[in-house]
Each structure stands twice: as structure tokens, then as C-alpha cells.
């Protein structure tokens, strides 16, 4: 499930095929340090390249456009190039901190630049909470290589031995002598190459010597976001551009335009015409683009266009059809493919003294990122330039190229700030209609989706159904566990090359719709099957939504464990602790999951203490607990979450009073933005649990704008207490994991407050009332 894992990328499944190339892996590249135009430049190049020329030659020619990682100008300014997008996580700041740490740079000298698309960066994707996890080592090493080079050059100028030197505040220091980086660059010569083996051997600072990592820095992207100066995709203007807005067809797939009547539109001043878009990749079908000289005119004209369609074949699917299909699937023994298979589950259930099972449902949930989708496209000097905020050049660039029918190198994606990503801007298919319109009318086009257009073209989190079963022996020990998960699969729709082979070899599966089921509880006989819901797949394009699979799968898993505890009458925290022994496969491994399940145990014990567990509460109140290990077993972020709720016994209304969360995510690079991510993701968790959710109606999303999709607002905000375990372990992800445990903690709290067990997301007052009536 790791992004650069070769076996995953080689694996293409049928269906829509992505032709992104395998990333040149950083580990197989040489690191070059050379001078060019009064700058010291540090870059990566493929191994073969550096054999034919010296480092500084390659760099000053930029002949092979090596990917520049950072450069130090002779003025002392250090620019870190970040191949990750900025969508609210201040990732540029965190990644620059890693470089600054090893380099010994003064933080005031640091700038960040976000890279445009260039295949030399390798596979680029900002998502999965991967950025710091993936970049920590290579950036630390790159910084260390830079330090070594500067020390060698600085020592020569100072006339001292390199061994006597250290770096601090952008200076090389030896005893009471020192020289600034900028002086070194003005005087020194640089031409140096590090092989991957040499890079691996460079010593990296021990945690107690750090001066930048783990300290708060004002995030570099914050000031322009307080004065209107930050430039987002929607702010781009190109010379000679016109505006366009889509008319989105009745079905996501297979629609065809039969005729367009624009007689009314012709009365609108500024209306320039329409285009039926011809997508050579067939990603979008039956789209009409409405063109005008202002956006307002495009909005108005699109509203009065009369288009007749032949809708795609699956035009009448509703939410209940998807749920019904899911229920059918999770009740078929052999459906889907095998993901976890420990021990002998069938035998465990056969010999069990008792068993129990429960089915959990989550409904369609949408992105509603604040900046509606948009892209601005232009053909210039033989290149298709696409301007937009996006989470992955590597997914977007080939998609646009294919739609246009041109080579990948002929498309250039320019990056901007993202007005929210949350997974919607990972596969940047919104750039396709922009590029096609520009192509068909031969002019630069700014293509903006209204909020309603954006909603219609969302890639929603699919509705899901899961069934969890447990087998108990006569001592009430959990001896068997089985979990079937089913949903529409985003990765199948958008990046099938990322789907690994199943354990039983019977096909591939979507790891982003499965992860979270491979828990760290030690249960000897344990089976997970993961199943694609094809009814969902046909109706709409399932998407990656912040926290992806674990966001809904843990709702089932962590609700169920509480249900078991209640059944056998033991404290649900005690039950969890007894299963977190950190033995066998739950021992974890170096570096990212050292100590395994024991760390989950530690956060759970900490959370128990801080959350008033077992303390006295007012009437109709309850505390519920849940744990999470983040986005994937291979990159665990250890979390325990307690929700304190009040349930109105009459109306059924649920109020979340407080969320208490303890996390261990290894080394925290930028503590304040880590906290900000957790604050935001806890509130996302509450929002998805109680306030969000829609349904599929005739193969479309019922929600279209903020009047009928209603994320949490400030007046719904609970109190929050967030504690990070002080850790020096390898840093893991933080952008999403905080979401995961919140919904099951609230469900468990509702049960503790009212005796009502809710097994459906979002949890609504009427569900509480219904259950009460039944009881």
C-alpha cells in the first residue's frame, strides 16, 4: 500500500486504465551539488545521467532538467522546492523545516516554491497523509549532503579543518571563526555528486540536537491567506481568455448529447456559443461547455440552454439500491476478495460458545471543498498549459493528455493554492473540460464550475455496508472475528494501477476502501473480505474523501468492539487493552511502527485518564471511546478518542460536548500545524458523524449546495482536548487520521448515554427516536 511500491504500480487491472508511468524512485538517483548563476543548487538526477557530465555542468545546463530540491542564492536566500501541494496543511513549511534542520539554516532565510508538473519529480500525490512520512528521510539526507558540502568549502576558506566545523544560523562555524553560507557561495566552487549509497550513510541529527524540527514556525502560507493575496486556481487570468461553464449531463457515464437549442442564450449579452466536448478518453461524456465573455453571462446562458440527451444506461439508481446490494454482498460467504486471513475463522465460529454480528451502513458523503472546481487552459508554443490547484500532477497530467489526444509531455500543469482538497483534487479531472474547451474554440479559457456544477461532478465517498461478526468461547474470550466491507471503489475508477492483488489471488482490491479493517487487536482467528459494490460503481464516480476507507470502516469495527464488551459485560476500554498485547503480527516493525500495538495501548490508557472515563456525568450524558491507527497499517498514527455527548431523550438530538483525543504520530515536525490538522479533522469527524451525508437519487447526488449539504458550523463546535505523546519515533501522517475514531466514539457515547445503538452514518435525531420507539 505504499505509494512507490513497484508491485502496485505494475499491476494494471481492467476497467479504466491510467497510463501514468512508474516513478523514478529517489533511492535510485544521484544527488548533485553544483553552482549555477550565483546559486548553489542541489538536485537529484537519475543514476545514468550523472555518469556523462559533472554535477555543475548538468546543473548549469539544466540539460536534463534535474529536479532541483533546494537552492541557496549568493544573497543567502534558500528556496526549497516542494513537490507537494498546499491545501491547508502548511506542508511547505513542514518539509522546509526538515531541510533547514539538517542544513543548519536560519529559518528567516527559507522560502518555499511549489513545483509545477515535471515527470522528474517522480510520482507526485499529496494525499493519504503521506507527505512528511515519505519525504522525511530523503529531505533530511539532501539537507545533510548540503551541509557537508558547505562545511568543506567553508573550512577551506577559513583555513581550518572540516572536522572542527559545524553549521548554525546559515553559517559555518569553527571555534570563534565563522563564515556565512552566502559568502561561501560567492567564494567557493561546487561540483559534487553523492551516490545513493553515500546518501544513505550521511549522518542525520539526533533528536536532542534539533533546532527546527519540532519547533513552531509561523507557517509561510498564512500571511497571504489573511490579506487576499494568496492566489488560488480560481484567481488565474490569462491574456485573451474567455469564460466557460459546463452543463453537466444526466448521468455520470454514457450520456450523449442529441441536440442543443441555444436560441434563448443568444439574447444574453456576452454569450459566445457552446461546444459539445469531445473527450478522446471518454472520461466525460455528453458534456456541453457554454462560453461567454464574462462568467456571469456563461452562468446565465448555461441556465437557458435546452439540451436533449440520451442518458447512460444506469440512470435510475438510488441510495437504497446501493445499500441493498451491499447488504446482499456482505452476507455472501465468498463475495469479494480476501484481505486478512489469520488462523481458522470457520473453525473458531464452529466451536464458539456464542457468536454475534452486526451490520453497519454509511451513506454517501461529499467533499464540498470551499473553492469550487475550476481550471484555466491555454495552448501556447506547442504545450497545453493547465492552471489549477491539484493534489496530483501525476494523475492529472496524463488524464488531460489522454482527453486531448496528445503526449503527456505536451501538457504542463501549473500549481496554485488549493481552496481545499480533501481528496477531490487528487484526480484532477475538472481540468479535462477546461482543456477541451480551449482546444475546440482555439482560445484560452477560464472554466469554472458553479457550486451546483461542482456538486454534480463530485467524487463522493460511496455509501457502504459492512458486517462484523465475533465468536466467543465460554470464558467470553474473543476467539474469532470476521469483517466484510463493501463500497464503491475510487481507486478502481481513477487509479486501477494502485490496486494490489488480494491474498487469495482472486483479483485486485482497492486498498483505500479496505484499510482500517486490518486492526491491531490480537485475535487468533481473523478474516477480512473486501467487496466492490458495482451498483455504486455504475451510478457515480466514487471518490477518495479525507480519511478514505478507515473513515467508514472504523465506524463498524470500533462500534462492534463496544457491542461485544457490552454483551459480555466488561468495560470497553478494558476489552480493547486486553487485545492490544503487541504480540505476533502486532509487534510492529522498524522504523514506522516500532512497538506496534503497545503504542495504541499507551494512547488509550492516556485518553482514559484525561477523558473523565468512569467519572460522574449529568443525566442523558455519556462518554464513548474508540481507537484508530490512521490511514494504513504500514504507516500507523496511534489514536484514542473519547466523545462526551448529551442525547435529548425526547427529540433524540445529539450534542457533542467534548472530544478528548490522544495521539502518537512519532516525531512531530511542525507542532502547531499538526494541532491545527487534528482540530480540523476532529471537527470533520463530528461533521461526518452527525451533519453531513446525502443520497443518490436517479444516479445523481441529492445535495447540490450548502443549503442541502450542511457541514458543521461554529455553533456546533464541541470543546476539544488534544494531547500528543512525546515521541522521537519516525514521523507518520496527520492530515486525515483525526477524523477516523470520532464517529464510532460518538456512536458508543450515544449508547452509553441513552441505550440506543446506532449503526448508520450520519446519525440523526430521528434514528435515535426510532430506536427508542422499538425498544
Amino acid at each position, binding site marked *: 500500500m505504499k505509494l512507490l511500491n513497484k508491485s502496485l504500480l505494475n499491476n494494471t487491472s481492467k476497467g479504466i486504465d491510467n497510463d501514468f508511468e512508474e516513478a523514478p524512485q529517489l533511492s535510485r538517483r544521484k544527488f548533485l551539488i553544483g553552482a549555477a548563476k550565483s546559486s548553489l543548487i542541489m538536485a537529484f538526477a537519475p543514476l545514468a545521467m550523472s555518469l556523462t557530465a559533472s554535477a555543475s555542468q548538468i546543473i548549469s545546463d539544466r540539460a536534463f532538467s534535474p529536479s532541483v530540491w533546494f537552492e541557496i542564492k549568493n544573497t543567502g536566500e534558500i528556496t526549497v522546492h516542494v513537490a507537494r501541494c498546499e*491545501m491547508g496543511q502548511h506542508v511547505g513549511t513542514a518539509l522546509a523545516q526538515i531541510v533547514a534542520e539538517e542544513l543548519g539554516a536560519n529559518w528567516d532565510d527559507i522560502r518555499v516554491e511549489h513545483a509545477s508538473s515535471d515527470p522528474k519529480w517522480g510520482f507526485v500525490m499529496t494525499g493519504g497523509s503521506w507527505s512528511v512520512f515519505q519525504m522525511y528521510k530523503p529531505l533530511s539526507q539532501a539537507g545533510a549532503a548540503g551541509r557537508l558540502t558547505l562545511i568543506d568549502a567553508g573550512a577551506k576558506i577559513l583555513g581550518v579543518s572540516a572536522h572542527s566545523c559545524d553549521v548554525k544560523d546559515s553559517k559555518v562555524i569553527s571555534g570563534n571563526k565563522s563564515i556565512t553560507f552566502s559568502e561561501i557561495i560567492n567564494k567557493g566552487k561546487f561540483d559534487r555528486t553523492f551516490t545513493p549509497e553515500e546518501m544513505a550513510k550521511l549522518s542525520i541529527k539526533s533528536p536532542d540536537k534539533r533546532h527546527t524540527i519540532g519547533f513552531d514556525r509561523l507557517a*509561510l502560507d*498564512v500571511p497571504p491567506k*489573511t490579506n487576499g493575496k494568496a492566489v488560488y486556481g480560481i484567481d488565474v487570468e490569462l491574456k485573451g481568455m474567455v469564460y466557460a461553464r459546463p452543463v453537466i449531463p444526466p448521468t455520470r457515464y454514457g450520456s450523449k448529447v442529441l441536440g442543443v437549442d441555444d436560441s434563448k442564450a443568444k439574447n444574453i449579452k456576452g454569450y459566445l456559443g457552446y461546444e459539445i466536448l469531445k473527450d478522446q478518453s471518454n472520461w466525460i461524456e455528453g458534456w456541453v461547455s457554454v462560453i461567454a465573455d464574462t462568467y456571469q453571462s456563461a452562468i446565465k446562458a448555461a441556465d437557458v440552454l435546452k439540451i436533449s440527451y440520451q442518458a447512460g444506461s444506469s440512470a435510475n439508481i438510488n441510495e437504497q439500491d446501493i445499500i441493498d446490494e451491499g447488504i446482499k454482498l456482505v452476507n455472501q460467504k465468498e463475495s469479494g476478495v480476501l484481505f486478512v486471513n489469520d488462523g481458522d475463522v470457520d473453525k473458531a465460529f464452529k466451536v464458539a460458545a456464542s457468536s454475534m454480528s452486526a451490520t453497519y451502513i454509511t451513506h454517501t458523503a461529499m467533499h464540498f471543498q*470551499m473553492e469550487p472546481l475550476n481550471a484555466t487552459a491555454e495552448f501556447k508554443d506547442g504545450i497545453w498549459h493547465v492552471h489549477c490547484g491539484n493534489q496530483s500532477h501525476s494523475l492529472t497530467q496524463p488524464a488531460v493528455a489522454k482527453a486531448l489526444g496528445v503526449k503527456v509531455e505536451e501538457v504542463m500543469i501549473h500549481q496554485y493554492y488549493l481552496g481545499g482538497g480533501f481528496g477531490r483534487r487528487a484526480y484532477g479531472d475538472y481540468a479535462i473540460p477546461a482543456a477541451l474547451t480551449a482546444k475546440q474554440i482555439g482560445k484560452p479559457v477560464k472554466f469554472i464550475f*458553479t457550486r451546483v456544477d461542482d456538486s454534480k461532478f463530485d467524487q463522493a465517498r460511496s455509501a457502504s455496508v459492512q458486517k462484523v461478526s465475533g465468536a466467543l468461547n465460554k470464558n467470553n474470550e474473543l476467539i474469532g472475528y470476521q469483517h466484510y466491507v463493501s463500497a464503491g471503489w475510487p481507486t478502481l475508477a481513477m487509479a486501477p494501477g494502485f490496486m494490489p492483488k488480494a491474498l487469495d489471488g482472486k483479483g485486485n482490491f482497492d486498498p483505500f476502501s479496505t484499510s482500517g479493517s486490518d486492526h491491531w487487536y490480537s485475535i487468533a482467528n481473523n478474516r477480512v473480505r473486501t467487496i466492490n459494490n458495482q451498483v455504486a460503481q455504475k451510478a457515480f464516480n466514487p471518490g477518495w474523501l479525507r480519511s478514505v476507507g478507515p473513515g467508514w470502516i472504523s465506524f463498524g469495527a470500533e462500534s462492534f468492539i463496544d457491542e461485544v464488551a457490552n454483551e459480555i459485560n466488561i468495560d470497553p476500554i478494558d476489552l480493547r487493552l486486553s487485545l492490544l498485547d503487541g504480540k505476533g503480527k502486532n509487534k510492529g516493525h522498524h522504523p514506522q511502527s516500532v512497538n506496534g500495538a503497545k503504542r495504541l495501548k499507551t494512547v488509550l490508557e492516556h485518553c482514559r485518564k484525561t477523558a473523565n472515563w468512569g467519572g460522574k456525568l449529568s443525566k442523558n450524558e455519556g462518554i464513548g471511546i474508540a481507537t484508530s491507527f490512521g490511514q494504513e497499517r504500514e504507516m500507523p498514527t496511534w489514536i484514542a478518542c473519547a466523545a462526551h455527548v448529551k442525547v435529548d431523550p425526547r427529540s433524540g438530538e445529539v450534542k457533542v460536548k467534548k472530544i478528548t483525543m490522544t495521539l502518537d504520530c512519532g516525531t512531530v515536525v511542525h507542532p502547531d500545524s499538526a494541532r491545527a490538522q487534528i482540530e480540523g479533522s476532529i471537527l470533520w469527524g463530528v461533521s461526518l458523524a452527525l451533519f453531513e451525508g446525502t443520497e443518490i437519487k436517479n444516479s445523481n447526488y441529492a445535495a447540490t449546495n450548502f443549503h442541502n449539504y450542511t457541514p458543521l458550523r*461554529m*455553533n456546533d463546535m464541541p470543546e476539544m482536548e488534544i494531547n500528543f505523546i512525546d515521541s522521537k519515533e519516525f514521523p507518520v501522517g496527520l492530515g486525515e487520521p483525526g477524523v477516523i475514531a470520532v464517529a464510532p466514539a460518538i456512536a458508543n457515547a450515544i449508547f452509553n448515554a441513552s441505550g440506543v445503538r446506532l449503526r448508520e452514518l450520519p446519525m440523526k435525531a430521528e434514528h435515535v427516536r426510532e430506536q427508542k420507539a422499538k425498544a
Partner: protein
Amino acid sequence: MIEFNLNGKVVRSNAFDDTPLLWVIRDEFGLKGTKFGCGIAMCGACTVHIDNDAVRSCSLPLAMANGKEVKTIEGFENKHPLQKAWVKEQVPQCGYCQSGQIMQAATLLDKNTNPSDDEISAHMSANICRCMAYPRIKKAIKEAAKQSTLGVNIFDPSISKDA
């Protein structure tokens, strides 16, 4: 022809009377700090001041701005105490909603120099922050209320950092 005062300057627009003020501000006068979020006055991303009231510019026909004083985030010239507090509390995540949040918050402080938690929530719940930076928005408003001396010069790393 509609004439109004935009951040202290008189401007004229020939756009249709019913064009939302938002698009006139952004596309005709090039002030991109005011954002488009929903178009139906539900999110607050497009909030500007008209005669010192917070107004959703996505839903205000241009004609209604005739003769009025319109202020956008750019009109604060980086001098509003809320902007300083926003940096201090590191409020923005994606940042897209933040111009609107600041414009909305400013009208609260204009009328109430020391708002309570509940007053802040009530006033600010008109604006959505999809990144849910709400705790920091709240904190920053309180911080700005403490420093309520208007017109303080603020440190802006974006100027020195070109960020």
C-alpha cells in the same frame, strides 16, 4: 452605469444591473481576495462590507451597490487588528474562506468590542470554513478584541518573504 466607492476609490461598471457584485469586484476590478463559494448566500466566502455592513456579494445585484461604499479584504491594507490576530493564531488552513471570515468578524468587533464565546459563535456561524478552522477563528477574534486599537502596523512576513 453603476457607480460606487470601492476601497476608497470611485469606480464605474457597465456590467448588467443584475450581475452579482462579486464578479464585478473580482473580474472587472481585479480584486481576487473576495471568493466565490456557493453563489446563494450560504457560505460567506464572498463577504464584503457595504456601508460597514457584512454583505454576501455573490447575491447582491450590482445595481444595489450604486452610490454605496464597498470595502473588500484588500481595503484593510493589512492593517486591521484581525489580520494580525489571524497570523498570530495561525488561523488559515486552505485559506479560501478567510477573507470572508475576516470581513464578517470585523463587523462584529465594530459593534461589540468584547464579544463573548456565544456572541462570536452566533455571529460567525453565518460563515462556513470547510477546513473547520473554527477554534482558531474564535481565538483570533478574542485576541483582536484585546488589541482593539485600530490602525496598528502589523508585521507581515509575506512582504519580506514574498510568500
